């Protein structure tokens, strides 16, 4: 269903491009001898260099005035660019790099004090030797490969390709302090929607050539702190006590197990458009998105709340 909708949209866009090309409106052409002809171009054969008109049939390109020759070639460019069959945009998600780090650490509290007249701060460190926390961070750079394919028999020039990669990333609401308070929700996160924009220009794509471009990278972080393990039990338990339900409570810190947390992120998709200069000077655009559902919600992408409803449901 989504594909069908995307196809319809592409057809509509192609239609609008065709409209801009001037094929709907007859145009007056002048030949090298100054004679005029009012008709609509239906085709230009780049091999034989002949222009096919709706009513006047085939006429060699060389018969037209230099300005009209330029117009016909420009029309042909837009016609070829607008064709869904002969000018293709393909999107493929790929993972460009990833890093992972995990460790078991002894939780600690560091206070840093700046004494006047001293360059570096002085520190006080308290370690919770009886406890252990598991820390893991995954970092992933994902992006989209944008393949532009020209299946026309003529080159297409000066194509602008713009892409926006959309992703969301959670951040912790509170800093990572053990002794923050037992009242705050330690695991609360704030979700931020992000996008990164990239614009490139392809000077020329020759016939049957594929050009591979890339979107900006979406950099996703998945971080987790697991504080559910107690490694030892020291004799000095002045600062901690066991509650009725058996959970450990550290003075000034609250329930130990309440201080686990996780923040994640994910790539939502990419939106791409390619454009060339139209006959009226305005850019003629071709658009695509992955997943295609992003296409419908393009207007809302510029603002916050870009998460598509169906993506949320996933």
């Amino acid at each position: 269903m989504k594909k069908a909708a995307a196809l319809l949209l592409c057809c509509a866009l192609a239609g609008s491009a065709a409209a801009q090309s001037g094929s709907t409106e007859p145009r007056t052409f002048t030949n090298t001898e100054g004679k005029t002809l009012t008709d609509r171009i239906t085709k230009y054969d780049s091999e034989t260099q002949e222009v096919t008109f709706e009513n006047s049939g085939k006429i060699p390109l060389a018969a037209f005035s230099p300005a009209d020759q330029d117009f016909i070639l420009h029309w042909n460019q837009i016609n070829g660019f607008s064709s869904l069959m002969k000018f293709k945009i393909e999107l493929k998600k790929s993972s460009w790099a990833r890093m992972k780090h995990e460790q078991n650490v002894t939780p600690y509290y560091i206070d840093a004090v700046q004494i006047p007249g001293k360059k570096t701060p002085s520190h006080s460190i308290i370690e919770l030797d009886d406890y252990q926390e598991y820390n893991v961070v995954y970092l992933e750079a994902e992006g989209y490969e944008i393949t532009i394919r020209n299946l026309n028999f003529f080159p297409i020039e000066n194509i602008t390709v713009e892409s926006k990669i959309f992703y969301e990333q959670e951040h912790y609401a509170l800093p990572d302090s053990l002794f923050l308070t037992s009242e705050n929700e330690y695991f609360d996160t704030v979700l931020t929607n992000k996008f990164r924009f990239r614009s490139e220009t392809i000077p020329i794509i020759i016939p049957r050539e594929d050009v591979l471009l890339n979107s900006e990278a979406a950099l996703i972080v998945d971080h987790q702190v697991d504080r559910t393990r107690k490694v030892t039990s020291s004799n000095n338990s002045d600062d901690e006590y066991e509650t009725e339900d058996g959970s450990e409570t550290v003075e000034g810190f609250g329930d130990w197990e309440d201080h686990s947390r996780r923040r994640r992120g994910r790539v939502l998709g990419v939106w791409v458009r390619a454009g060339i200069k139209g006959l009226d000077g305005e850019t003629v655009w071709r658009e695509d998105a992955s997943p295609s559902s992003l296409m419908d919600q393009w207007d809302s992408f510029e603002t916050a709340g870009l998460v598509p409803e169906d993506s949320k449901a996933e």
Partner: protein
Amino acid sequence: MEVQKTKKRIANSSAALLSIALHAVLLLAAGGVAALKYYNKQGAAFQVEEPKPKMERRKLQMPVKAQPFIEQMSKPKAQTTSRITANAPQMVNIPEQGEYVKMAPMPTFKGGYTNFVQMDRTLEFNSKYRDVSFGVSSVDFFGTRGKAEKVVIIVDVSSSMLLDERGGADSFAIVHEDLRQVIGGMRPATLFNVILFDDDETALFTPNLVPATPMAKTNVLQWVGGINTNLDLAGLPEGAANYTPRRTYDIPMAEPDISGWLKGVQAAAEQQPEIIFLLTAEWGNVTSQNYGISYFQNRRKFREYQQKRIDYFLSDEDARAEWDGYLSEYNELRTVAIKMLELENQARYEAEMQPKVVRDWDEILYENEIELPAAPLAADQQAVGMVPAETRYTLDEVLESFFVIVMDNYRQQGFPQLNFVLLQGQGTAKTSAQKAAMMTSDAKFRNLSKMANGRFRFLKGRSRISNQLSQNMEDVIDALYESAEEEF
């Protein structure tokens, strides 16, 4: 009629019979030769071949690396090609010196010695018309090795590299020597750069990668050569810092807090070398000598926290008295420490030694076994209004910043090869608990190397420089009185 006559004449001629007879004789003779050949044919048998003298492989006078060429020949070319586009001029290697173009063609990513993918058609085209691997240099930087056409070396020149525990200026002389060897051994077509950093300041030898021509090598060694030879002028020379970031990064760390090696890596990543070598002494911009911890400080939050902390101590009578007592004791010790440093440097001067380099004045107190008072902790942290954890970046935040800085520049090319070298000090006592908490520089760099699939090595500096004087508090206070009297 004439034709028919001729036909009749042929059919009746005896010459035909003679011809048939002659053919029959020829056929018999041919058959006899074949039969004779078959009769004489020997049955299949193993034959022992006499060993031929082995020809010695001829050594080429100019070693040629043929592997990438073979790969190029045997692998079918992918139809999809990346392109140079108008908005990405950084993909093209533009040499800064004119003679480079005449001397050697443009380097390429082809060759299989890095994790780089084919970048663009122009580079591929050039690669066909140049010597294979012409610009690849093999670099061994303090035991971390790599081969690449684009190399950046980042060196810490801050006072942390010159501490007594790390061997002082003598250890830095090792750095000079290694740089001389590494840069001197680079092939002229290798593109390289050297980046020096000193806390917040970063200096690039050239704004972009340059070919390792003899002139460039001489210039860079001259540029680095004068640094940290005289410890009265330790660190990056004034006005040498010339780096400003080329772009902004969406990272957890604030831009002014990117310092030290991280800023050096940022400057390097923006030039997209295939391999980066980094030599440093510390992880973060704050290092505590007595605890061995090192981290990146959030300076804005730190200032805010200190203000709130002081406000808290001044708001309560008891806390204020405690704070004032602590400060007066600290100030007294500061005067002592500065005098100790003065006396120590005087002794070193007399012994024709370089002056002592310290991070802060209190370090000499620890070395003379003088305990510093611990800063009073806020009894009610909630009342302060901030927690100290906010004043420093967590490890995952630093790792995220590092990852974003690198990947924003490299994107689909993936990670470059990273090599970390840490100048190791002697006599820095760290408890196992602190190591377990991953707060030390070496633990952090080790982990980062693993994560980035890079290499990590320790550089053992020269022996620790011992203080010339063993000082005690009473003697120094006496010396202070004496100097005060002299001044009076």
